């Protein structure tokens, strides 16, 4: 098998808080192949965004390794890391908060080109900006407008153009369509699909929306309280979810089909605190199948069939 573009090994990110250590990402490992999309799903506070940001070293990891094209990025110096960031970009959730309100569309998209001294000639830089705007479907006339003058969909297109400016190989998309209306959401999802084909991009697509992740991903990783509980190819995960949390999560999606009502698994209680978690399976307190052995030992992520990984005592 070819070397994966991205390999994450035993990644941990802890935050110190007054109440104790918050295990935001706790021993997460996975790989992403070149040109593919890994969807990362889970509910708020499960560590999916922290995982995305730690992979890009926007947050420094507590421990673990991330290999990008075989290079351990956590061992890079700040200067080497800056060069590496050209390859690895991020698109943020909130296009209202991730764009500088005092800069024009043209200035925002040109910023990475300026900072990295990619194109120093202002005229050529503007040509490149216009080319990027065309790529993401922003009309030329918006080059001198400010973000507040545009709607959410267009703002997200600016964020995408900015990420593309460096011609990256890999983009972390952190809830890129969550703030958008469905008709606009579909436009942006189609744009991301087209760009992936056009430039051979590899994505990590972080979302809480399971219909979106199903549409968009080749593989899906499910996170719960900082841990990866299941990972499988998209079709397999939806047809044969093995982890009880994945099963409940999938059953909770409201489906716009009146003839096939979902048989819903209603979970007890809510997410436990990620601060100083107790040993044992973190899902056990809400799990309908939990037994004593779930309380004592944290289940390991094991490959139960090719490409299908699950961390559950029932699958052992």
């Amino acid at each position, binding site marked *: 098998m070819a070397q994966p573009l991205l390999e994450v090994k035993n990644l941990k990110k802890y935050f110190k808080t007054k109440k104790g250590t918050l295990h935001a990402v706790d021993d997460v490992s996975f790989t992403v192949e070149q040109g593919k999309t890994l969807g990362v799903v889970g509910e708020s506070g499960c560590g999916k965004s922290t995982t995305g940001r730690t992979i890009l070293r926007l947050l420094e990891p507590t421990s673990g390794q991330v290999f990008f094209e075989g290079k351990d990025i956590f061992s890079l110096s700040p200067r080497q890391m800056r060069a590496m960031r050209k390859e690895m970009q991020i698109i943020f959730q909130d296009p209202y908060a991730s764009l500088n309100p005092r800069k024009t569309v043209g200035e925002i998209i040109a910023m990475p080109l300026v900072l990295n001294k990619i194109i120093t000639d202002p005229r050529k830089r503007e040509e490149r900006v216009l080319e990027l705007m065309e790529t993401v479907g922003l009309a030329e006339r918006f080059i001198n407008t400010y973000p507040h003058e545009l709607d959410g969909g267009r703002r997200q297109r600016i964020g995408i153009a900015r990420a593309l400016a460096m011609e990256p190989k890999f983009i972390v998309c952190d809830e890129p369509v969550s703030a958008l209306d469905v008709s606009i959401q579909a436009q942006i999802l189609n744009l991301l699909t087209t760009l992936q084909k056009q430039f051979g991009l590899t994505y990590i697509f972080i979302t809480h929306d399971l219909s979106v992740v199903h549409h968009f991903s080749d593989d899906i990783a499910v996170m719960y309280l900082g841990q990866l509980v299941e990972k499988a190819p998209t079709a397999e995960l939806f047809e044969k979810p093995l982890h009880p949390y994945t099963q409940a999560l999938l059953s*909770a999606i409201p489906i716009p089909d009146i003839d096939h009502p979902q048989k819903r698994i209603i*979970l007890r209680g809510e997410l436990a605190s990620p601060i100083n978690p107790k040993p044992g399976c973190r899902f056990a307190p809400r799990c309908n199948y939990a037994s004593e052995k779930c309380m004592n030992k944290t289940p390991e992520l094991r490959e139960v069939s090719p490409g299908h990984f699950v961390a559950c005592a029932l699958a052992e």
Partner: protein
Amino acid sequence: MEIQTSEINTVLEIQDLVVNYETDDGIVHAVNGVNLKLERGRTLALVGETGAGKTTIALSILRLIQDPPGKIRGGSIRLEGEDLLTYTERQMEAIRGDKVSMIFQDPMTSLNPVLTVGDQIAEVIQIHQKVSKAEAEKKAREMLELVGIDGDRAKEYPHQFSGGMKQRVVIAIALSCNPTLLIADEPTTALDVTIQAQVLELMKELREKYQTSMIMITHDLGIVAETCDEVSIVYAGRIVEHGTLRDIFKNTKHPYTVGLFNSLPNIKRRKDMLKPIKGLMPDPTNLPSGCPFHPRCDHAQEICSKRKPLTTYLSDTHFVECLAYENGTGVTIAEREG
């Protein structure tokens, strides 16, 4: 005799409602002649995108439109036969939280952070019912338990609850006076999907138990399929299509409704590309002439930009506002894909 029973069963009837926000920058035409009717015990979904006017319709029923700049410029809103638009502010106060309650989208901002949740529930009960403070407090604890929260937590403050629990408290407040009509504005949008499932299940149980009529405002057609009896599709301040759940999901007619369905990623049938609606929502200060959807519609003909569509009844329960369904307009549409 039959007419009489139907009148008794009609909880809410809105006719020709027009609401504007009159600002220095121009008049925002938020609601432009809405008609709707809700029977006892039924749930109506108002579906549409940001700025369609869904929330303005809901706030008009409670007369909570901020004035200025908001003005109800025409129409009537009848609650059990009484026109709320003729009510005084004091009469309205007696209705809000009693006969008509509302659940807002964001439970983090709809609770008072400096009052205990018990006090917030008891407050509504004391305003509307002739009970002592002690009785109101006792009822508040019962309401908490009804929504699945331990009654002892009545003395805790909102910040001590998670998002899903806070929304349960809001539901407890809304239901504490056993309302005739419950308006829920995106009640689960701020919640995670497993918590959303719990809250929707709870709302369904309670609604069946108390025969409450409900208006559910949402953009999620999945939630509509699971919780509602009837659906109104709102676009640019008009109801462009209305019908039973089956009419809307199985016999979709309006090109905008078709576009909404096509924009959704389908879990059952995965396609490489989605079919979004082209363009953007129209600017409500400057609505397009003719049919407000025509600039985004794939089937639009010249006449669509000139003449406003009339309401066409396709059956007793299903209507649509689109020139393709009127005789002699020359506009045609291919049926929605499979």
